[in-house]
């Protein structure tokens, strides 16, 4: 054990030393970057930069600003007529904010960093969990429990030391969002919840920035560009063209119970990979000045990994009465988006209190009752204790308490409820379980509301669900 602890300590120190050396190298290399017109450098620094750059440019003049290393490094994309030297200069001067360092944000920022986008900000309040890694490709096993934004920034720096990466380990909200977003030219919505999507839309409407919005769940993904304004692009023929914003298309948020999440519904890793990569492509095209016909402006891409179809559908135009992006918006400052959406901006565990305490038992109590029951069965008593697991079939197949039966909450009504009612009426004890103890309360309440008064006491719900079971009864039970 001593040896292990010693090694862990040594590795941590080495890692720290490596990080210090890397940031030293980064600072040195940064002074060799092309001069950005937008850089807030004082004159002395700028002159010094210019000097460095001049030294780094060989006799043949490659472009206005790009030094030799940049021409070489980015040559494969500079070769494209769609990008070219001018496009690369714009990329090197561009600042992109990626909101969410998850399944979308990771692949999106990898390609932006690779493409030499001058500054990338990456926002995420959360820390790396082992269940993230199958899709969140910037994080590794050793990054577990560290800040996602920091972990992503570290990997991005290792991909490109010539660009500036700024991690923001914060929950984006109405107080900080405008301050952060206003430092950037383009915003990528790689978030995982409805309130943040409305927040980002309004931020972009107020700050007049384009929003490249991606989303993914299970086997499907969606992508579009919101809030595009042609007057910021000199290549546009019609400078008055403006694409719709999120609120133009979805003025009202969906009911919270209709919104799925990766942790509840699952997601195939490559699906956000596809969408995140395409978000980066749209950002690159937008930065180099492609016009709205070529961008996903006013169009929504729908990807279905199940049968591998990509489909692009036409969205409605910008709403001239839109609350956020019209000429006379009613939203002139950010509001409370969690209240507006009646949902949390964190994909965090809800802790519902639907049932009163007498209908709830703890994991340890449940274990005791089950043990007692085994003794009773041995002594030929008729009474049974039924464990009703209301998670989805896929979750039930993944792991379950021995002897539990599966009644998925989605289909828990009608005949299914009647079956349970019959069992309770036959004097069986029924305990509902689910992953965290929320759905199980809903199911238990349905039964309690229907059952005769005398049997109500036989219906229980496991507090904290299978997570609690794993914590206090069976350490080998997987927490997912």
């Amino acid at each position, binding site marked *: 054990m001593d040896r292990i602890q010693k090694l862990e300590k040594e590795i941590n120190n080495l890692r720290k030393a490596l990080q210090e050396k890397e940031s030293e190298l980064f600072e040195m290399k940064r002074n060799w970057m092309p001069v950005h017109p937008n850089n807030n450098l004082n004159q002395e620094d700028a002159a010094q930069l210019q000097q460095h750059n001049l030294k780094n440019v060989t006799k043949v003049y490659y472009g206005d600003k790009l030094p030799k290393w940049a021409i070489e490094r980015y040559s494969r994309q500079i070769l494209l007529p769609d990008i070219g030297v001018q496009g690369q200069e714009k990329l090197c001067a561009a600042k992109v904010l990626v909101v*969410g360092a*998850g*399944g*979308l*944000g990771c692949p999106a920022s990898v390609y932006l960093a690779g493409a030499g986008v001058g500054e990338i900000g990456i926002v995420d309040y959360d820390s790396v969990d082992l269940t993230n890694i199958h899709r969140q490709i910037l994080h590794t096993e050793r990054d577990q429990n560290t800040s996602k934004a920091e972990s992503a920034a570290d990997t991005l720096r290792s991909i490109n030391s010539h660009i500036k990466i700024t991690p923001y380990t914060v929950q984006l909200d109405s107080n900080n969002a405008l301050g952060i977003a206003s430092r950037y030219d383009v915003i990528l*919505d*790689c*978030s*995982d*919840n*409805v309130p943040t*999507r409305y927040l980002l839309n309004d931020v972009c409407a107020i700050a007049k920035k384009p929003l490249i919005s*991606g*989303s*993914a*769940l*299970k086997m*499907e*993904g*969606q992508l579009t560009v919101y809030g595009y304004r042609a007057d910021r692009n000199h290549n546009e023929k019609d400078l008055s063209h403006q694409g719709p914003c999120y609120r133009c*298309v*979805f*003025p*009202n*948020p*969906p*009911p919270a*119970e*209709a*919104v*799925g*999440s*990766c942790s509840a*519904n699952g*997601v195939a890793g490559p699906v*956000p990979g596809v969408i995140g990569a395409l978000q980066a492509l749209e950002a690159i095209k937008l930065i180099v000045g492609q016009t709205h016909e070529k961008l996903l402006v006013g169009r*929504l891409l*729908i990807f*279905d990994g*199940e049968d591998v179809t990509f*489909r*692009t*559908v*036409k*969205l*409605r135009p910008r709403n001239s009465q839109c609350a956020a992006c019209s000429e006379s918006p009613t939203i002139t400052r950010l509001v409370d988006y969690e209240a507006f959406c009646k949902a949390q901006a964190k994909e965090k565990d809800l802790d519902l209190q639907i049932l009163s305490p007498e209908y709830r038992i703890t994991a340890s109590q449940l274990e005791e009752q089950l043990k007692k029951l085994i003794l009773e069965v041995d002594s030929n008593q008729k009474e049974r204790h039924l464990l009703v697991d209301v998670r989805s079939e896929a979750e039930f197949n993944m792991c379950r308490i021995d002897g539990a039966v599966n009644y998925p909450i*989605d289909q828990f*009504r009608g005949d299914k409820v009647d079956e349970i009612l019959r069992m309770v009426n036959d004097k069986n004890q029924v305990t509902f379980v689910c992953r965290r103890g929320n759905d199980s309360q809903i199911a238990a309440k349905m039964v309690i509301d229907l059952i005769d008064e005398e049997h109500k006491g036989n219906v229980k719900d496991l507090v904290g669900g299978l997570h609690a079971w794993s914590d206090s009864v069976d350490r080998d039970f997987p927490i997912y």
Partner: protein
Amino acid sequence: MAASVKLHLQFGGGAELLFDKIKKREIELPALKKYFPDCQHDKWNIRDLLVWIKDNLLRERPELFLQGDSVRPGILVLINDADWELYGELDYELQDNDTIMFISTLHGG
């Protein structure tokens, strides 16, 4: 009397979960007056279609699909791959072989 109408119905983004997880369906609507004898108009529109869907396909939890006589917020209706707002939404008159798609918007990432 107007004849029956054949449609391609498609569900996606999770909306298919309310319809036995079937993403694509071919349906044939009877003549409108046969289905709604008291109806004041002759041709099927999206409003009528939503009622037909509720009666024939949507067995459970209609509130996750419908709100009032329209679809709930967060479901995008597409008529032949274009936002239904471009075609008059509920009042659009269905044509033979139209593809009507109901896409639930995703928010995960």
